[in-house]
């Protein structure tokens, strides 16, 4: 196979689109926290981007996509990108018409946005140095192996588990990690006692706009080609996002007023849900996947609030549960006419079982290992800011800055 300039052009552009999602998460989350923590929330996203950009090149890519070791992890033979060049990328034995280095870069922006999503669980109370260590450990120990399992030649990919653009690798993992961290780090002081309101809704909406925008690259770029698969992925992605938005709006309207944050949360829920399915389902299936995603994630958020969990910005409800639903839904709605694989509704029970396996394996791995990592960081250098730092706000206490 040769480099195709059209495919390369699209993946270059898609990489830029996905890149903007990491600050996009920062702005989305930044708008949801109180004014005293806005800068910190955005800074965490930038920091995640910078840290993981380096981790990925030095180590992460090799762990995820280096030659398989026992179905579990990539070998260290590609550390520092040794052996990766401008020839067509070969991933888990399949050759793609884009340069190997471009595939590295495209995957890099997925790794960065994942840890950015995780910051939901430690919002408004994290100690900067603790976050830095956590981010590096988490990506290395949780994210990189999961990417390997599904995409890098690991056991789940071999089993045939479908995850087109990261429903499990990115969303289940980050959502359940956020939950685990929230449990370890504890509630924000005042949570449950007085109401903690979003400090800058327009900024959150800007973040959401960047996420939706970037999602076009996220899912359609994952085709690694400029062809019908990419076109279908683009269309089903947008459809699921739109349906999620409308469904969340409706269910929240029934219970009160239709908040703008509900509309965009529903959109994100729909986009998340269709992520693993984007290369395998039809537009009409995407409506179901996105719509159920919107409704389910809304209910999960309400459940989380009722239970008094301070997984503060709902990465668990939206990314974790939306991703879980999406991976299962891929096993249900996959259509061979679209992406060569049939799911449950076309009679392929096997695909459904395999996808459920992948989904729950990811839930367990991400949740348990994150608990351990967060606990260790907490007990060593510390993960939580002091009471006074939290009261003053992280902008001033961690960065010396003020909105």
């Amino acid at each position, binding site marked *: 196979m040769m480099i195709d300039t059209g495919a390369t052009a699209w993946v270059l552009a898609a990489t830029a689109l996905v890149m903007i999602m990491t600050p996009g998460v920062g702005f989305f989350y930044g708008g949801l926290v109180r004014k005293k923590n806005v800068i910190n929330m955005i800074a965490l996203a930038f920091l995640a981007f910078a840290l993981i950009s380096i981790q990925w090149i030095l180590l992460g890519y090799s762990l995820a996509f280096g030659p398989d070791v026992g179905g579990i992890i990539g070998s260290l033979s590609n550390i520092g990108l040794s052996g990766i060049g401008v020839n067509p990328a070969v991933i888990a034995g399949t050759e793609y018409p884009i340069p190997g280095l471009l595939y590295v870069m495209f995957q890099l922006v997925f790794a960065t946005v994942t840890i950015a999503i995780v910051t939901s669980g430690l919002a408004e109370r994290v100690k900067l140095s603790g976050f830095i260590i956590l981010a590096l450990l988490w990506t290395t120990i949780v994210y990189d192996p999961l990417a390997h399992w599904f995409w890098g030649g690991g056991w789940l990919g071999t089993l045939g588990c479908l995850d087109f653009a990261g429903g499990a690798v990115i969303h289940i993992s980050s959502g359940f990690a956020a939950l685990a961290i929230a449990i370890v780090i504890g509630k924000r002081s005042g949570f449950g006692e007085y*109401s903690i309101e979003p400090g800058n809704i327009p900024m959150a909406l800007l973040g959401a706009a960047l996420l939706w925008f970037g999602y076009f690259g996220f899912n359609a770029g994952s085709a690694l080609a400029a062809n019908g698969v990419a076109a279908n992925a683009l269309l089903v992605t947008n459809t699921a996002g739109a349906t999620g938005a409308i469904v969340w709006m409706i269910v929240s309207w029934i219970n009160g007023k239709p908040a703008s944050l509900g509309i965009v949360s529903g959109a994100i829920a729909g986009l998340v849900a269709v992520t693993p399915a984007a290369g395998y389902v039809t537009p009409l299936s995407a409506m179901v996947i996105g719509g159920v995603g919107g409704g389910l994630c809304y209910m999960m958020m309400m459940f989380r609030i009722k239970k008094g969990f301070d997984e503060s910005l709902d990465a668990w409800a939206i990314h974790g549960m939306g991703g879980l639903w999406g991976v299962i839904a891929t096993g249900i709605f996959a259509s061979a006419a679209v992406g060569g694989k049939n799911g449950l509704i076309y009679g392929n029970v096997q695909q459904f079982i395999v996808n459920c396996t992948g989904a729950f394996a990811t839930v367990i791995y991400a949740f348990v290992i994150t608990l351990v990592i967060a606990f260790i960081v907490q007990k060593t250098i510390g993960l939580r800011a002091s009471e*006074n*730092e939290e009261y003053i706000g992280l902008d001033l206490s961690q960065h010396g800055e003020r909105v």
Partner: protein
Amino acid sequence: MKLIKAIIKPERFEKVKKSLEEKNIFGMTITEVKGRGEQKGLTLQYRGGSMIVDLIPKIEIDLVVEDSNVDITLQIIMEAAETGKIGDGRIFVVPVERSIKVRTGEEVK
């Protein structure tokens, strides 16, 4: 008539407002302010250095009440605003000579 100026922690504002409502005290004007008390603010430690944060966001509630209502109002605010920690706030009482309703032009009391 007195003007009660209560400078309290923002996180206690809802509670104060609710407590006042329960006693049928509705009229109030609120301002977002920043303040420093006699404690000079909070000191944060970092890597051997330290930093005083001395202008901390507060809510100022201005209530004009009849003389006979001053004590009860003070009482309510103090109870609802108190956390027992530094920065709980201050209440000042200032005399008011006249009070007028714009809509009706009537001079109150």
